[in-house]
């Protein structure tokens, strides 16, 4: 698999580290009624067979966290973007 890093260009798989589902959002609330949201955030995943938005870390390259949209059935990558929208990007 090759991932087109928006900064470094297309690079080999071994330069990247995978984290997982990029669609989960860290809850802000620390109240007890947020328990389900936290459990969901930390543990539960859609795990689709198809397009998946996911976080990859270009650890051996520019150290950017990327959001990659990839088909989990074919490994085809349809989009790569910086996980944040920092300036200079």
């Amino acid at each position, binding site marked *: 698999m090759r991932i087109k890093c928006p900064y470094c260009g297309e690079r080999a798989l071994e330069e990247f580290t995978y984290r997982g589902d990029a669609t989960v959002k860290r809850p802000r609330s620390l109240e007890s009624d947020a328990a389900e949201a936290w459990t969901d955030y930390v543990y*539960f995943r859609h795990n689709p067979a198809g397009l998946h938005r996911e976080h990859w870390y270009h650890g051996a390259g520019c150290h950017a966290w990327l959001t990659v949209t990839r088909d989990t059935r*074919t490994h085809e990558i349809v989009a790569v973007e910086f996980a944040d929208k920092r300036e200079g990007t």
Partner: protein
Amino acid sequence: MNPYERRIASMRYSLASLLANAVTGNCNWQPVWREPEPKPAYDVVIVGGGGHGLATAHYLAKEHGITNVAVLEKSYLGSGNVGRNTTIVRSNYLLPGNLPFYEWSMKLWEGLEQDLNYNAMVSQRGVLNVFHSDPQRDAYARRGNAMRLHGVDAELLDRDGVRKLVPFVDFDNARFPVRGGLFQARGGTVRHDAVAWGYARAADRRGVDIIQNCEVTGIRIENGRVLGVETAKGFVGANKVALSVAGSSSRVGALAGLRLPIESHSVQAFVTESIKPLIDVVMTFGAGHFYVSQSDKGGLVFGGDIEGYNSYAQRGNMPVIEDVAEGGMALMPVIGRLRIVRSWGGLLDMTMDGSPIIDKTPVEGLYFNGGWCYGGFKATPAAGWCFAHLLARDEPHPYAAAYRLDRFAHGAVIDEKGMGAQPNLH
């Protein structure tokens, strides 16, 4: 049973039957399983004709007398991970949530062939995990002692002990020298396909309908209660539906609206050309990801880490292949000129704590068995046993009591490796 079915059911395997059939030109062997069409409804419909689903059916019939059961398989039976693993069985686990379960599985393996009247070649050749440092030794000692306290066999070997078992290991020139190993003599290998076939034959003989090429396309639920499944062969009603589709748990679970603490990952395995006996045990490398055994046919069967990213593609990429080969060469450079003839991929349900789930679901009548990570094959008998128990009695079997779905909410995770909620690190 009709006469045809009776004839199948009466077919017992033995040396005598083998000889008798040889004399008559092997023309009288009967199908190992029937090929029935689905009935309109069953007491239990098991989704997934892999090792776990077939074992569940067998134990439902044999231990609980529930025979009005169908096993629905999307493809051919045994087409999932039961036919794609590296055939290793062992019960060398650390945590109390896992140990009794895998040990029960080991015990069932030990009596499997006599139970099924099918030789699955359960070979207790021993499983050796080598270690390379004092902290690693201490972690293995903790594990080995946990095993012993649970009545499981375990031995801690020093370098010489390891050398006796595997003299060809690189003891002298290694980046991470081998300093000893944890050995479970009762661990070993089992001919994986034969497990599926043996369970299928045994379940079939007790009247379970095994229906191949019958993909489940929907799960019918009304008022929070399951009614049956939509399939490629029409609707099949069921009092209870049991999901046993590890690798595709999320995909099938989604049909019932389940969201699971699971990711699907690909793992590769490899086999070399057949050679004369070289490795007599199952061995794992402690400084990389490499595990190996030699099959009865003579090929070295080995594997390594999962690919590390969500995948349903049942195949992998070069980095893991190289990593595995490097591990193999680091451990035993004598295999360098042996050649890999085939690599293949399987799909693992990787859970968030690295341990499986056997539990009821929020949908009444819908039961779940999955999340097996690397442990699915070795768990086959016990998973079938405990899942059947849950299905038959509606309460978890004591050996699988920790494999609950709500453990993630409460924090009662079973994290053997201490890696946290990061499936690709387990």
